[in-house]
């Protein structure tokens, strides 16, 4: 566990840089991950993914399986990788402030 400072905000992250607590999530966090992910500008499609991830997480207590994310947003997996170069887990989930999945994944 470590603390990250960005634009006056403090975030507690795990060893992989995922937010420890969704309550700490804010737009500064998104901006912080955006830079480290090498994303130039966030567009509506990025936000569609982030919002879907957070909605699902708040309802179900876990990140959605990739195929559900794909179906609900209408974005194919390839396109999600175009939006988030590190992929739906390490890129999009991290930006949305979700915990990383564990186990046989």
């Amino acid at each position: 566990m470590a603390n990250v400072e960005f634009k006056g905000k403090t975030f507690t992250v795990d060893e992989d840089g995922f937010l420890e607590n969704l309550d700490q999530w804010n737009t500064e966090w998104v901006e912080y991950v955006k830079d480290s992910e090498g994303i130039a500008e966030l567009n509506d499609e990025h936000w569609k993914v982030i919002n879907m991830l957070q909605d699902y997480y708040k309802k179900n207590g876990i990140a959605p399986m990739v195929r559900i994310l794909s179906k609900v947003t209408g974005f194919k997996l390839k396109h999600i990788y175009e939006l988030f170069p590190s992929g739906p887990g390490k890129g999009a989930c991290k930006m949305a402030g979700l915990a990383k999945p564990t186990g046989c994944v």
Partner: protein
Amino acid sequence: MAKVPTPAELLPGLSYEPPEKGWMDVKPDFRPGTYCNPASPKWMEWINYPYPAARSVPDDEWALPQDWKEIVLQGMDDRLKRFRSLKLFFDICVRCGACADKCHFFLGTGDPKNMPVLRAELLRSVYRRYFKTIGRVLSEIAGARDLTEDVIKEWFFYLYQCTICRRCSLFCPYGIDMAEMTLLGRELLASVGLNIDWAMASVAQCYDKGSHIGAPPQAFKDMVDFLAEENERVTGITTTPSYNRKGAEVLFVMPSGDYFADPGTFTMMGYLLLFEHIGLDYTLSTYAAEGGNFGWFISHEMGKRLNAKIYAEAKRLGVKWILGGECGHMWRVCNQYMSTWWGPVDFLEKPVSPITGTRFENATVHKMVHISEFTADLIHHGKLNLDPQRNAHIKLTFHDSCNTARGMGILEEPRYIINNVLPEGNFVEMPPNTIREKAFCCGSSSGINANENMELRMQGGFPRANAVRFVHEKYGVNHLGCICALDRATLPTLLEYWVPEVGITGISELVGNALIFPDEIERTTDLRDRDLVGFGELAEEAGEEEE
């Protein structure tokens, strides 16, 4: 996370030249990418595990409890008394070296301490120093050494560079079980607060929420319902899983990877289609929603705590017996530990297939049948209507999962299924030294499939991937089949690294592809929406072959 070297960078660095100094004088090289992070105190507090603390491998101090040495030695003493096997394995090894080059981690890293004989010696030397007269008197001359913090660190490094696959044990003339020693060694580490984060996080999630992936009941149901809808979209067949239904004949338990992570989700679709096809009276449980058991990777005690849910739920729901999905270590636990842990399972019946009447004599004691045994029996009795041509785009080889193959002898069943759901000639074997009971491990099992450990995983999986490359280049193999969710999680990463042309599939996925239903829609794709041969982009290809 450390940058993972490319295959071209990794291979030239592989050397089997031993270091100049003796093994006791060589300290482990904790290079980023070759070890797992210590467990976060959060997970340990969730499951009430001792000595939670924020630890970091590069730190000199590992925040061991003050009396760590007494705890470890007392723990070893206890285990020597409880497990006669441990004492036997410590005493009878003659250092013949038959195991030395059988370990995938030794083959992939060239590190002599990954020779099983020397991995065991890391523990054995301490045993000899404190529990044998000769070691007490002669110390290093007798291969004994003091228990120091450096020794503990060395255990942490090398006991998590063993995937408890037991390939070495197969070649040991005495049958010394390295997996058992590794597990007991990990228990000793856990007793002073040293665990790995990836395994511990999965354990805590499973204990608290019901599955390694941390899915609460509603998420489990949402995901399986989604996969049932997907089945309907592709095949036109409504698959109707039920949840927590009392009075069902069979409880079906699968690893959580199968309803969460690709490509396992296609295997889950295959299970649902199969059960629909034969009209099985089964239920899923949102409580026993995890077949796998990362607890067993940490300690026998934790393995038992996580395993308890399966029988408890079978009893509560009043099913007759339990059917289990494609998972590897789940079966080692269920087949070899479960009835010892819980005693006679008198609330269940001896499993009998309601479709064929076959009595599964091998499951008499623990009352759990493996999906491959169940499916092979259905095919053998002609109960499945199959069209192998629907798998014609798949040229397959099969990876025997360590725990089902070496652990319980499930060697023929998956092959029998494969040969019935694939066109003739579409299945080829990897070299004999790398399959069946001699199978090479995926290199990432036993809880070490963490991202930060990637270089080691790619090294340890190299022997497996190398055999896959061989059949890919020689026969054009494009898929590697397996009956284990950890394989389905780790092999895609491994093959993406070493043999990116080959994908991973579960065997029940292939069954799902091949099943013919009387009221199905026209099948033009497989369960992954890929064109079948003769349709879409593959239409032309088939035409060319006919010419």
